[in-house]
């Protein structure tokens, strides 16, 4: 897709009217453009631009929520068109949750939207998630990455125990990354996390980097 076409997807993601993205996706399907291309080169590429704008503080949370809503609608329309064997082809599985004792989920949800938008299959465990719950899902789903979120200074300490528990059972994979308002790179290093994402966009970049580094098992 050329720049002009990506720009059309970008505009559709910013439109408050859902019909904009619906019409655009339908138009490309009618033109016989491959659904994979519509997804990867259209929607995901456009979401990437929105993410960059958010990272540069040019837009705020409502604009990201809007883009995510529109993107999800686009994917819904696209789904029946995707070739069956390709249906679940994703970059990898990403398990995410806000840690035990913490009920804040805006940051986690933003990361979820961006990670989904980047082509991952996301398993969102919600808020107040215990280490046992994380372990159970890792055993069932074998994710490439686990993301831990916390908004409170006190609950971020919970991350240390979760990482320790995961490492005892799974020494190398999944990678565990952390984020949230009080979290810093230093804290991430101290508690043995594989990475820290300062915001939702950096979380995506981090996930891509970790999985590309070839250490995934």
């Amino acid at each position: 897709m050329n720049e002009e076409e990506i720009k059309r997807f970008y505009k559709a993601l910013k439109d408050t009217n859902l019909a904009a993205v619906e019409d655009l996706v339908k138009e490309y399907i009618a033109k016989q453009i491959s659904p994979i291309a519509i997804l990867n080169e259209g929607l995901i590429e456009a979401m990437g631009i929105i993410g960059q704008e958010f990272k540069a503080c040019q837009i705020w949370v409502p604009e990201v929520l809007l883009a995510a809503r529109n993107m999800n609608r686009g994917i819904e329309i696209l789904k029946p068109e995707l070739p069956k064997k390709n249906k679940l082809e994703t970059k990898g599985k990403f398990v995410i949750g806000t840690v035990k004792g913490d009920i804040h989920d805006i940051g986690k949800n933003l990361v979820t939207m961006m990670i989904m938008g980047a082509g991952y299959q996301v398993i969102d465990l919600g808020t107040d998630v215990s280490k046992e719950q994380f372990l159970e899902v890792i055993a069932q789903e074998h994710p490439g990455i686990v993301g831990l979120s916390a908004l409170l200074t006190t609950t971020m300490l919970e991350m240390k125990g979760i990482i320790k528990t995961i490492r005892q059972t799974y020494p190398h994979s999944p990678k565990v990354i952390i984020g949230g308002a009080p979290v810093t790179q230093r804290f991430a290093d101290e508690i043995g996390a594989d990475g820290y994402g300062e915001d939702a966009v950096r979380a995506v970049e981090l996930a891509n980097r970790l999985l590309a580094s070839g250490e995934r098992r």
Partner: protein
Amino acid sequence: MKAIHVSSPKRRFLSGLFGGRRGGRISVANPTSIVSIELMERTGVFFPDAHLDPDKMAALAAAGYEILGFDSIMPEFSVQQEAEALGCVVDWGSPTMMPDAKTHPAKEIDQLEIPENLTEKPSIRVVLRALELLRKIYGDHVALIGKVMGPWTLSYHMAGVQEFLLWTLTDPDKVRHFLGRLKEVTITFAKAQLQAGADVVVIADHATGDLVSPKTYQDFLLPVHQEINQRIGGPTILHICGNCSDRLRLFVEAGFDGYHFEWQIDTKMAVEVVNHEMSLIGNIDNKNVLFGGTPEDVYKQARYSIEAGVDILAPECAVPLQTPIANLKAIVEAAKEGYS
């Protein structure tokens, strides 16, 4: 002859709130909760009881003055007192967990119901009764701070945070309608708190710097805040978290007497921008200093803020429940050294 003023906690606080005469030292106050687990242990009063029982609420709040030596007592610890009165199901938490609204009952305008007997609802009544009790014991010499949620925060409770934020783009009229209706809750509760004995009421309205733009504040909230301030009549302090460096002048325009701000906002810059047209209350870093630092770290930041010219010294927001008492006391110690 130079007038000599007795420097009582209440005088210090009120002088700071209105940017008035300076006594021997800056006032130390808490527009938001300073309750910690240690403080609960020292008083024998714990969450969640302290959110629901007026005697316990008053006893725990008073520890801020009695044990920590702050100039103020502020009895509303959570942000959910109004939520329950408005029909949300609230989980009142535990000694280590703040309360949380589990349901958001109004996704549409016609689902928004504001009870006529708001001030009689148990979760509202408890705060008013606690203020009445505190006024009787401390009203003559300690500043009593009330706290209410602004219509933006109340809209989060009623509709859910993400839904409400999305509406600012997809359905701005609905946002205005919610704010218009819910501001009545803010005004009614604030007036009742002032009548019960509060010297000032904090209006916490979480249109935070990290979530929405200055333009969103200006378009939706500024006129509402102006009306709230006009109709309350009594003194008000705005509390909005996050980095709001880019909208400080808008808060001045809204007509608040003070703004309770975070460490992320540089103190010197804030003092310059606000230009004494509104008092600045803050801004000791909760995460790295009050919770994660030592009394020496607290001392250094407190001295920086005093020298930069804040009007009242305070933690930046409700302190983490694991904050050590020694760190909270260090704020008062730094203040006791005077202005320079």
